């Protein structure tokens, strides 16, 4: 239990996927203009990450390893993630058209979020079990969401701030992301791996 808690803490805060592993930077920069959109993206990513890490573990454990095809993992995981994302979109559209409208294009865009593939590959590299994989995926998603929401809130304030001409837009956003990453380094030493 303690082990799982430490794993969750590590994946969400200490080794935050965006701010210390630099994974999933495209949606981090791209979908951080408006808070509502960022919240939708965070939720959708959390869902897909959890599901994809569980399924990729099953595929690794029961198909790739027995057949000695470990080297195919990148290809197979990408295929699986694309399938999971499509399935999620169908499910969301059928069960809650309103949520589907809210998430819009962000659902299919998760396919190209490298954090999803990163979690699947890290699970394999660290030899996580099924439960560990699920916890790792969910907390990585939660950490991504936390970083994305905090960053969006900062950017919304930056819009009205008096930023020097040369730094307006993307430059000041990147500087802000760097400062956030520095702040998140404060979590190092919490003792989680």
């Amino acid at each position: 239990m303690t082990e799982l808690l430490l794993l969750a803490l590590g994946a969400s805060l200490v080794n935050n996927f965006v701010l210390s592993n630099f994974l999933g930077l495209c949606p981090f920069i791209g979908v951080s203009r408006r808070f509502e959109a960022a919240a939708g993206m965070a939720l959708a990513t959390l869902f897909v990450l959890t599901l994809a890490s569980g399924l990729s573990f099953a595929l690794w454990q029961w198909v790739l390893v027995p057949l000695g095809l470990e080297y195919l993992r990148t290809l197979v995981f990408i295929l699986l993630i694309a399938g999971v994302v499509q399935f999620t979109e169908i499910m969301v559209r059928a069960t809650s058209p309103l949520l589907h409208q809210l998430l819009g294009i962000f659902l299919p865009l998760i396919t190209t979020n490298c954090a999803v593939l990163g979690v699947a590959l890290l699970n394999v590299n660290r030899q996580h079990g099924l439960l560990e994989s699920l916890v790792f995926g969910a907390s990585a998603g939660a950490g991504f969401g936390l970083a994305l929401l905090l960053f969006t809130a900062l950017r919304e304030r930056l819009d009205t701030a008096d930023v020097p001409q040369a730094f307006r837009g993307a430059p000041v956003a990147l500087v802000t992301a760097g400062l956030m990453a520095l702040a998140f380094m404060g979590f190092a030493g919490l003792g989680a791996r």
Partner: protein
Amino acid sequence: MNPDAVVIAVLVAAALAVTLGVALGWAAARIEPDTDSLVERIDALLPQTQCGQCRFPGCRPYAAAIASGAAEIDRCPPGGEETVRALAALLDRAPRPLDPAFGTPKPAQVAWIDEARCIGCARCLPACPVDAIVGAPRQMHTVIAAQCTGCELCLPPCPVDCIELRPAPAVSRRHRQPRAA
């Protein structure tokens, strides 16, 4: 690497792709919502004023309530008898008179702001369901007549009562026609 390994690898990747494809196709065909298209068709007949006189937050929630049987078709004064007849035809029900508890039909109207009296408080902006009011705090506001649905929701928040409703020019009746998909 022996040739068998390559064949197995190709077979596994192909099997996975085919499995996912079949599963997705099956899921899409199986789960695809049918009720949703009924909501869409009802929504297309509603006047899209988003006025909330039916006691639902907007036209689409009302359409969903009609589709699920939670609400009758007589709750839309802006649509008038014409909309009730269209809905009755779509749903194969008997037309019925509008329920006066939800208001009475009025001629098409648009909001108009007396710009000399507007103090620029911006309180009417969030009230507008279709974002037809242009303005910013301490700036004069104005109404985009072509977007305004005449729902009257901007009247209560105005502290100086500078908004009034005027008969709509012919062009602003756009919202009475079914929306383009």
